[in-house]
């Protein structure tokens, strides 16, 4: 056990523990805050695994943007502040499938790697990763920018109710539903 192993164990315990709280807590807002803890611990694991750039991007995008968006959604859907009882379905099947997936994958990976040790490679600094991205992976990178634009436009179109509504709006939801379904067909 080196120092890196101890750090990885501690951060992994924090990540899994707060992950359990994310899927088990009965407070909506606390689930988002436990998600921050989980993602932060994962960023720490990336740092120990010498993935510097990925760690900072994780902090920037996940902890900074995604969780804030999720908390905005929690607020905008008028979630109750206290504990709420109707967050869960009765789910022994969910526990079975989730536990089976997690423990099965864990057993597979333990069997594959045992207790072997590897040397950590060169750190994934921004310079090295940028070199790789813009040399070997430049086409997926550009495609990804198109995908981001498409997601942006799609989110705007979905969230604006005045796009795709017929001109004569009688105040009922029926024509809007018909319009939506015909749109879906024409796409």
């Amino acid at each position, binding site marked *: 056990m080196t120092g*890196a*192993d101890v750090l990885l164990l501690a951060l*992994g315990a924090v*990540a*899994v523990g707060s*992950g*359990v709280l*994310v*899927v088990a807590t009965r407070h*909506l807002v606390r*689930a988002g805050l436990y*998600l921050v803890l989980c*993602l932060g611990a994962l960023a720490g*694991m990336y740092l*120990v*695994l010498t*993935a510097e*750039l990925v760690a900072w991007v994780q902090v920037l995008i996940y902890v900074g943007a*995604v969780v804030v*968006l999720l908390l905005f*959604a929690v607020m*905008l*859907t008028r*979630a109750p502040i206290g504990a709420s009882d*109707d967050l869960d*379905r009765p789910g022994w099947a*969910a*526990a079975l*499938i*989730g536990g*089976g*997936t*997690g423990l099965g*994958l*864990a057993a*597979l*990976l333990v069997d594959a*790697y045992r*207790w*072997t*040790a*590897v040397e950590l*490679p*060169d750190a*994934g600094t921004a310079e*090295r*990763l940028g070199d*790789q991205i813009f040399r070997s*992976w430049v086409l997926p990178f550009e495609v990804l920018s198109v995908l*981001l634009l498409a*997601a942006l436009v*799609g989110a*705007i179109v*979905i*969230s604006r*109710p005045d796009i795709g509504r017929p001109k004569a709006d009688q105040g009922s*939801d029926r024509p809007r*539903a018909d319009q939506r379904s*015909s749109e879906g*067909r024409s796409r």
Partner: protein
Amino acid sequence: MRPVIPYVTAALLFGLGVYGVLRRRNAVLVLMAVELMLNAVNLILVTADTTVRAQLPHGGQVFALFVIVLAAAEIGVGLAIVLQLYRLRSTVAVDEVALTEGRPTDSPVEPALTRSGAGNGAGARTRPGSVDRPEGER
């Protein structure tokens, strides 16, 4: 560095994400569980980058960056859908969404549900088939 530690962490996080997606009723919490799964995959990719000596160095970390960008796009569109669902139904419970809606033939549930206002969750809840659907259909 023992690679089994981050690998097992990632496997457990993925299992937790699967459990959360299947268990939670609130759509925002379902999205949070999806984030857990995506992060588990990211951890696998970054760890594999340190253990596997590939011809192109740091391929796993580049993939992890791509997955982070995909997750950001996913959460944007997903939250737009969730907010639109809340605007239509004033609830975000995923098992109260009628699966039969929006078919080209007719949309029988929509007017009755939206006209009943804030209490429309009860209307959806009492409809047969919306509660005791088997798990595999979702």
